[in-house]
């Protein structure tokens, strides 16, 4: 941080200005909107999580009661935690892995690389509502492409109601999510791959290093910072997953795709209890868990980085 301030002094920006009026004019509006509609709601959610809201605007303070019943009595919550954990871990690894594979294809000097890149990135830009509905159709039992292809190959026995079966629903949603985000990771990996020092790659080639050896011993270690930040970024996103699940399965069948976020939404708006306190407690618990995870992951992975060099 200190270096950043010094750098600015070099650029000629004074350390402190005494012009309060322009500062307030420039910074004020954004701060007011942000504080009022982002920070205040967060504080209010924490406040709500300590209360129970009953009909007719009766609000009762229960302290940590919501948290206690959440962590000890709520089976659906733990089911949602398990699903979200599976989704986050496998989703993150598959996403980042698929993105890396795609980036390697383009890096291998495939013809028309620019065209492939533009097509592969396009799902990132499309709304989950659109993507989700298309994939509900793709998984359709009667006329979806997955089952159609299986029947072509006379594998009728494998044709399946992918989203209707509690054993496959979560994995079907997961595949959709990988389809949407692989392109994002690909672009980041591409930037990192083209940023590698060419002389190191050239040296590996002179040593008659096979492409697999080059990949494992030369390229991957140098890409480590990129992999770390993509894993963290991807994990945060998946721990908050809502749209794709809500659109494709609404958490069903039999809570097999229920995630923490869809459960929060259901408790708040679908169960007609009018109690925002309990779902707020879920949101707070999950937020704290995300923060802890991010801190641990960045901490431990960065640490190992330093030891290696």
């Amino acid at each position, binding site marked *: 941080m200190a270096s950043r301030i010094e750098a600015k002094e070099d*650029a000629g920006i004074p350390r402190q200005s005494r012009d309060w009026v322009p500062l307030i004019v420039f910074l004020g509006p954004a701060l007011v909107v942000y504080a009022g509609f*982002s*920070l205040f709601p967060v504080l209010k959610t924490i406040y709500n999580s300590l209360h129970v809201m009953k009909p007719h605007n009766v609000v009762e303070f229960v302290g940590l009661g919501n948290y206690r019943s959440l962590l000890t009595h709520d089976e659906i919550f733990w089911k949602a935690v398990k699903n979200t954990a599976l989704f986050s871990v496998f989703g993150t690894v598959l996403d980042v892995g698929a993105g890396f594979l795609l980036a390697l294809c383009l890096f291998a000097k*495939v013809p028309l690389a620019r065209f492939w890149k*533009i097509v592969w990135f396009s799902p990132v830009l499309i709304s989950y*509502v659109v993507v989700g509905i298309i994939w509900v159709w793709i998984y359709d039992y009667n006329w979806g492409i997955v089952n159609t292809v299986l029947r072509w190959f006379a594998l009728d026995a494998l044709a399946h109601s992918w989203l209707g079966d509690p054993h496959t629903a979560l994995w079907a949603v997961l595949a959709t999510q990988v389809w949407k985000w692989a392109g*994002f990771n690909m672009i980041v990996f591409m930037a990192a791959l083209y940023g590698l020092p060419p002389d190191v790659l050239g040296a590996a080639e002179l040593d008659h290093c096979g492409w697999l050896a080059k990949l494992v011993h030369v390229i991957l270690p140098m890409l480590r910072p990129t992999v770390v930040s993509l894993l963290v970024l991807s994990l945060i996103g998946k721990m908050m997953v*809502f749209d794709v699940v809500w659109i494709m399965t609404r958490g069903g069948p039999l809570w097999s795709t229920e995630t923490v976020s869809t459960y929060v939404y259901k408790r708040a708006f679908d169960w007609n209890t009018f109690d925002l306190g309990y779902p707020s407690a879920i949101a707070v618990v999950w937020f704290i868990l995300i923060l802890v995870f991010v801190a641990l992951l960045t901490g431990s992975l960065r640490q190992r980085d330093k030891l290696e060099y």
Partner: protein
Amino acid sequence: MHNVTAPFKKTLLLLFVIACTVITGGPFLWVAALSLRTTPEIFDHPYSFPMHPHFGKFLKAWTQANYGQYFWNSTLVVVSAVFLATLLGAMAAHGLVRYPFRGTRATRFLILSGMMLPPQMLVLSLFQIMFSLRLYNSLTGLIVVYVATQLPMTIYILESFFAHIPQDLFDAARLDGYADFEIFWRIALPIGTPAVLTTALLNFIMLWNEFLYAVVLLTDNSKRTLPLGIMFFMGGHQIDVGMMATGLMITIFPVLLLYAFFSETMIKGMTAGAVR
């Protein structure tokens, strides 16, 4: 040996690339075909080419199926929110860079930490807050929420860009008698155009696709944005697949249009946050 296997490997790679492209692009082409066919035709042959394209379906979707209304609601909300977020964000970024004060670091931290907030931490109490402000079920309310949630990222991108503009330029302008706001409007903003364009595009895409805040804060059919409108059709018992496909195409068309013109900017912008 090397020369014998090289073309083989190259072909294998190309085949893999084509397979990936079919998997990524195929669904879009399929929906585009569905959008021009009627539901009975689709159930007969789900994967045939639209031999007799029904372009009239788009008109029907726009007028009878209410997609016109959803489209204008989305446009109104997203364009206003992007405009406000960009303007307020640029002003704040300029303020943070050019008018440092004792609390600059704290303010910056406070704003940028907003990028980490899960929507679930906000949406429950926003529902309450908007209700008491009489902004529940109103497009204005949704615009305000969108501006608030997009500000941190906007400020993050613009601030790092503005910081690279040499201070001499601003000092010279001041000597020439420019007022503070004039300096922002006539120097910082024009020089920052590339970054401003990037954030505007980024915010447009993210808000055009936004679902959670909209589904919580809007209830009237006449106020629904496109994602909500489509979900509403999905909830019906008899799903008119052909008509829904037309609606999906209407929804992705503006995004594809922007992508056609600004593909590089959008690709770079979307991934800007991940590369440090």
